[in-house]
C-alpha cells in the first residue's frame, strides 16, 4: 500500500525521481495542436499569404501604368559643362535627383543618382571615370550605369538625352536597361 502511494508520487509531473519521472514528455494538448495536419495548414497559409502579398504591387502598377515620365526638360547648356565635369538636376520629378556627366571622351551620360543599394547619392569620379557611391563604396560604370563593384546589384536608371544646338534635354527614362 505504501509502495503504491510512493510510486504515484514519483510519477507525478516534475517529481524529483529521475528514473521514474517519465510523464513530462507527454502532453496531449500539444500533441493535438502541433501535428502534421496543423503543419500542412500553416504551410498552405504561408503560400496563400505570399501569393496575396504580390497583389498590392499589381494594383499600384495598374494605377501608375498610364503615367508617362517622358517629359522633355531642358537640363543644361553644353558650353557650361566642360569634359570631365558633371552636374546635378532632377528628372522626371523634383524628388528624383539625377546626374549629367560629360565624360572625358566627350559623351553625355545621365542617370538618376540614388544608389540602387540604399539610396545614397552617387557622384562622378573624374580620375577613374566611374560613378561612386561613398556610403558603402559602390561603383557604377559611367558608360552603362551598371554596377561594377560593391554592394549595389542593380543598374542606375538611365535618362535619355537629346542635344539641340547648345542645349541638353532630358527626354525619357529607362529604369531597367542593358
Amino acid at each position, binding site marked *: 500500500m505504501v509502495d503504491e502511494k510512493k510510486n504515484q508520487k514519483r510519477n507525478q509531473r516534475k517529481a524529483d525521481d529521475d528514473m521514474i519521472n517519465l510523464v513530462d514528455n507527454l502532453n496531449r494538448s500539444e500533441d493535438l495542436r502541433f501535428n502534421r495536419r496543423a503543419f500542412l495548414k500553416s504551410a*498552405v497559409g504561408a*503560400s*496563400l499569404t505570399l501569393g496575396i502579398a504580390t497583389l498590392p504591387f499589381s494594383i499600384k502598377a495598374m494605377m501608375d501604368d498610364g503615367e508617362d515620365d517622358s517629359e522633355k526638360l531642358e537640363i543644361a547648356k553644353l558650353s557650361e559643362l566642360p569634359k570631365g565635369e558633371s552636374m546635378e538636376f532632377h528628372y522626371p520629378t523634383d524628388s528624383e535627383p539625377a546626374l549629367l556627366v560629360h565624360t572625358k571622351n566627350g559623351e553625355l551620360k545621365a542617370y538618376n543618382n540614388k544608389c540602387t543599394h540604399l539610396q545614397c547619392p552617387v557622384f562622378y569620379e573624374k580620375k577613374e571615370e566611374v560613378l561612386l557611391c561613398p556610403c558603402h563604396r559602390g561603383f557604377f560604370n559611367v558608360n552603362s550605369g551598371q554596377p561594377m563593384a560593391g554592394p549595389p546589384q542593380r543598374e542606375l536608371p538611365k535618362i535619355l538625352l537629346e542635344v539641340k544646338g547648345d542645349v541638353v534635354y532630358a527626354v525619357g527614362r529607362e529604369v531597367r536597361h542593358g
Partner: protein
Amino acid sequence: MGKKTCWVAILCSIFLNVVMLQWTIEAFFGKEFEHVYMYTIIAIASSFIALLFYGKWRKLDKHERA
C-alpha cells in the same frame, strides 16, 4: 495521387511564391509592369493550387482514418 504528392505540391508552391514575391518587387521598382502582372498571376494561381492540394490531402487523410 497520394498524400506525398500533396505535400510536395504544397511545399513547391511556397518556394514558387517566395520567388514570385521577390521578382514582383524587383519588377515593380524596375517599372516593368507587364512582368509585375505576370508574376502576380502565377503567385495567385500557385496559392490556389496549394489550397486544392490541401483539400485533397484532408480528404485522403479522413479516408485513411475511417
